[in-house]
């Protein structure tokens, strides 16, 4: 019997969950159930990590509604530098931190975000994704999501740390991820094993946070309907 890594085993499930006719939360839950079904011990490692992050309230100090969003200047998937201040001159910005192109939850989330791009544009706003990955993988991530939004590289998770969103993956999770087929070092051009807590901010043209979603449980993401709701108010 050839042993398949969890990453490979999840490929079909990821495609299936992406296409589900259900709210994003349900699609993500469906994937989480697949993970539990395929690899119970991996799911338990995830639960332990998430519990610890919840206990210390990781991400709690990230910018809140009403706070000014710290500015960034980061390269997009083609290497062009993109500044938040310049984006805001054109309208509100939906900024969403993702872990990377390898993460099935991120792929489902990015695909859902690509699905609402026309409505976001119609509201005069723009979506940008931020990951700690280098351009080879931000461009893969973008094309996999069939998105036209920019995917920015936050190398070494520096901007994520500024927003209090960087976490260091501890050894247990690192080994579980490596075994599952997700060795992120090559994607990030470092050996750091840091990742952002997935988070989404709707930033108004005035540069302040209009809505935010931060959850140290990376299986949960801001529902795209909530993003559209925040843009309409």
């Amino acid at each position, binding site marked *: 019997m050839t042993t398949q890594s969890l990453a490979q085993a999840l490929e079909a499930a990821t495609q299936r969950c992406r296409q589900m006719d259900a709210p994003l939360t349900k699609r993500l839950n469906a994937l989480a159930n697949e993970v539990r079904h395929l690899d119970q011990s991996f799911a338990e490692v995830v639960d332990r990590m998430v519990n610890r992050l919840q206990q210390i309230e990781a991400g709690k100090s990230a910018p809140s509604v009403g706070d000014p969003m*710290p500015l960034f200047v980061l390269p997009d998937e083609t290497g062009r530098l993109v500044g938040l201040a310049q984006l805001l001159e054109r309208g509100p910005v939906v900024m969403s931190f993702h872990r990377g192109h390898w993460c099935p939850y991120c792929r489902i989330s990015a695909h859902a975000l690509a699905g609402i791009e026309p409505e976001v544009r119609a509201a005069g706003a723009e979506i940008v994704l931020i990951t700690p990955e280098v351009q080879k993988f931000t461009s893969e991530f973008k094309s996999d999501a069939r998105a036209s939004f920019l995917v920015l590289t936050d*190398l*070494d998770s520096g901007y994520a740390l500024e927003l209090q969103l960087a976490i260091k993956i501890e050894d247990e999770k690192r080994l579980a991820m490596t075994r599952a087929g997700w060795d992120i070092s090559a994607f990030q051009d470092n050996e750091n094993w840091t990742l952002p807590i997935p988070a989404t901010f709707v930033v108004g043209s005035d540069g302040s946070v209009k809505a935010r979603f931060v959850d140290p449980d990376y299986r949960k993401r801001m529902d795209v309907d909530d993003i559209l709701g925040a843009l309409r108010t």
Partner: protein
Amino acid sequence: MELHQVRYLLAVCETLNFTRAAEQCHVSQPALSRAIQQLEAELGGELFRRERRLTHITDLGRAVLPALRQCYESSLSARALARSYLKEGHPPLHLGLARSIEMELLSPLLTEISTAFPGIEVRVFRGPPVDIGEKLKSGDIELAIAGPLGDEWERFEARKLFEEQFGALLSRRHPLSRLNAIQLPLLLTERLLCLPHCEMTGRLTAQLQSLGERKITKHEAPMVDDLLGLVRANFGVGILPMARRIPDDLCIREVEGVDLRRWIHVFTVAGRPRSIGVATLVKLLRAKDWSAITRTEDRATERPQ
């Protein structure tokens, strides 16, 4: 992790003293201790053994320190870039480049730099690896893009960018240009033309000598343009990176029977303050997708025949 927690951690690592670290960070000692404890809760273990004068870092602390330091420094440079973006008054960039590196490879990145920092000057030094190494040490250049420097100085920080493969540069009128790849012995009777101190030509001649040829004729040309001209004038076979863009009347062929590949790195010096221009260029170099350059065959087929 929170930014201030990492900052406090780095201060304790430096001072090995919670009181002094707190002073250095302008916070009370209980506040600093609390922040370190929160970080310890997140990382799942103690980062320091607290023993007054014998306070020391634990194995876990030592293990996580490089990652946290890099993340913190990246955060500082990200903030500095956001603050100084599109503003003038940046110090010049002093770059060192191996002679084989095509400026065109860097021009998209330098375009970003010149837009981000209006009016910034770039000064480029080209030379052999040993000179690049010396200039990095002395601070005459802050960043270098080159193959191995031949110097194991522990403060050089090297990050892999892409692999460069050298081949034989030929005029299309040269009989060897009709071959897709050139077997090493076919070069025994050729005169070699290379850039000064070319490490790859060194490898090639050593390999040729091992085939029994004692006398290998080798000429150095100071600049790539000179090499092209000499090859065109039939003075010999040039040794150049295969990914290099060259005029249509010339071609570069793979040489079989010797390994002519080397990794190009970006070099900086650890522990030196870095201008935001240099920090940004390093990040752009690392983030760039170099795979198109590494796949030399693809580049070769793109070239009009």
